[in-house]
C-alpha cells in the first residue's frame, strides 16, 4: 500500500526533462519513419512490393522520401560497389539527425556472394554505422518489414544510436573511408 505520508515532490533536473522530451520525440520518430530509398543493389527490387499494395508499408507510417534531408532511414539495399559507397557517404552525411541505417541482404554484412569481388566492399559498418541488418539473399518483404519493426523496437529501447556513434567515432570512420576510396570527394569529368 502506498504511504499516505506527504513526500515532497522531487524536482526534475534539466537532463531528466530533456530525456522525457526525447522519449516523447521517440514515439513520433518510430511511428513515422521515412525512408530514403537509395537502390544500391538487388534488394531494392523487393522494396516496391513491400511499399505498395501487397504489403503496404504505409500502415506502419513509413513512406519513401525524395531527398536525403527529409528522410530518417537510409536504406542500404544490397551490395555496395566502391562507386556507390562514395555516393552513399555523401548521402548519409546530408541527412538530418536522428538518422538510422538499415542494411538489407547479406552483402552489407560480410560481402555475401560477392565477397571476393574487386569492386564490392565486404562490410558496411566499417564505413558508416548500421542499426539493423536484414539477412537473406534476397530478403522477402516479410523480413524487410520485420527489420523495420525491429528498428522501431530499438528506437523505443534507445539502442538505435548509430548516428551518435558516427559523430563520436568520426575520425575512425573517416579513416576507413579513406582507406577504401582513396579520396572521399573526388574531381573528374563527372564531378566538374
Amino acid at each position, binding site marked *: 500500500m502506498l504511504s499516505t505520508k506527504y513526500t515532497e515532490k522531487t524536482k526534475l533536473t534539466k537532463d531528466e526533462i530533456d530525456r522525457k522530451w526525447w522519449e516523447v*520525440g521517440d514515439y513520433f520518430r518510430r511511428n*513515422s519513419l521515412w525512408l530514403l530509398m537509395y537502390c544500391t543493389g538487388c534488394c531494392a527490387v523487393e522494396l516496391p512490393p513491400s511499399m505498395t*499494395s501487397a504489403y503496404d508499408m*504505409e*500502415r506502419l507510417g513509413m513512406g519513401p522520401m525524395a*531527398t536525403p*534531408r527529409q528522410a530518417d532511414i537510409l536504406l542500404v539495399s544490397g551490395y555496395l560497389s566502391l562507386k556507390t559507397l562514395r555516393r552513399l557517404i555523401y548521402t548519409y552525411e546530408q541527412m538530418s539527425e536522428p538518422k538510422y541505417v538499415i542494411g538489407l541482404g547479406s552483402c552489407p554484412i560480410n560481402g555475401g556472394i560477392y565477397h571476393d569481388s574487386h569492386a564490392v566492399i565486404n562490410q558496411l559498418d566499417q564505413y558508416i554505422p548500421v542499426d539493423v541488418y536484414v539477412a537473406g539473399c534476397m530478403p522477402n518483404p516479410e523480413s524487410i518489414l520485420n527489420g523495420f519493426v525491429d528498428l522501431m523496437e530499438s528506437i523505443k529501447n534507445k539502442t538505435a544510436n548509430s548516428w551518435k556513434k558516427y559523430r563520436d567515432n568520426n575520425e575512425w570512420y573517416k579513416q576507413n573511408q579513406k582507406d577504401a576510396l582513396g579520396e572521399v570527394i573526388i574531381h573528374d569529368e563527372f564531378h566538374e
Partner: protein
Amino acid sequence: MILNILIGIGIAFFGFVLQTSIAGINRKIVGRLQKRHGPRWYQEFIDIFKLLSKRSITHGWIFDFGVIMALGGIIATAMFMPLTNNFLAFENFDNFFIFVYLIAVGMLGMAMSASGSGNPWASIGVMRALTTMLAYEVPFLIVVLTIINLTGNSSLTEIMLYQQASGNNWFLIALPIGGLVGFIALMGMLGKKPFETYVAPAEIASGPMVEYGGKQLGMLFIMNEISAFIEVSLFVHLFLGGATNIFEFLIKYFVVYTLANLISSVNGRFKIDQVVKFFYKWPLIMAVTQAVIAIYFGWVI
C-alpha cells in the same frame, strides 16, 4: 481586440487540426482506392511532430527567415477566415481581396527561403510554383469578380448570406461553368494532380522542399495544411453557400477536399508548359463566357 486576435489564432489552429485530420483520412481513402489499408488517420500529425522533433541544418538566415515568414503569413491569412456566416475573428475584415494579398506573403516567404537554399531543384520548383500560381489566378479571379459583381459585395460573409438568402442557391449551381472553373483552380491551388508540377518528386525531387529537413520541413508542412484550409474554405464560402453552422461547414469541406483528392489520385501530372496552356485555354474561356452570360445577359439559374 486581444480577444479577436485570440479567436483568430484559434481559427488558424482549428484549420490546422481540421485539415490535417482530413488529409489523414484522405490518405486512408486513397489507400483503399489503391487496394491497400492505408496509414492511421492521425499519421499526418505524427509526421509533423516528428519533423519538429528532429535536428535541422541551416543554409543561411534567408533560408530560416523565409520559413518563419511563410508560416506567419499563412497563419495571419487564416485568422481572417470566417468559419460560418456568424463566426469570424475580425468583423468586416473578411474581404476576399485580403486573402488574395495575404496568402501571397506566405507563398513569397516560401519562395524566398527555397531560393535561399541554393539547390537548383529548389529554384526550378519555385519557378514552377509561381508559374502555376499565375496560371490559375486569372480564370479564378474572373469568376470571383463575376460573383462579386452579382452580389455587389466582396465580403465573404455577405457572399455567404446572399447565397443562403436566395433559397440556398449556391453559386456552384447558379453559375455552373464558373463553379467548374473554380474547382479546377482549386485543384491547382491545392497542388493536386494534374497540376502538381511544382512538387513532382520523381522529376525535380520534391521541388521547393528539396533542401528542407527537420524543423523547417515541419513548419512548411503546417503552412501547407493551413493554406489548404484557406483554399478549400474559400471554395466552400464562394461556391457552396458557406455554412450556417459548423457541422455543415465540416461536411462541405470534407466533400470538396475528398473529391479533389480522388480526382488527383487517378491522374498523371502535366508538364509545366501544359499547365499554363491548359489554364489559359479552357478555364479562361469558360470563365469569360460565364462572366458575359451572368453580367451582360443576366442569365443566372
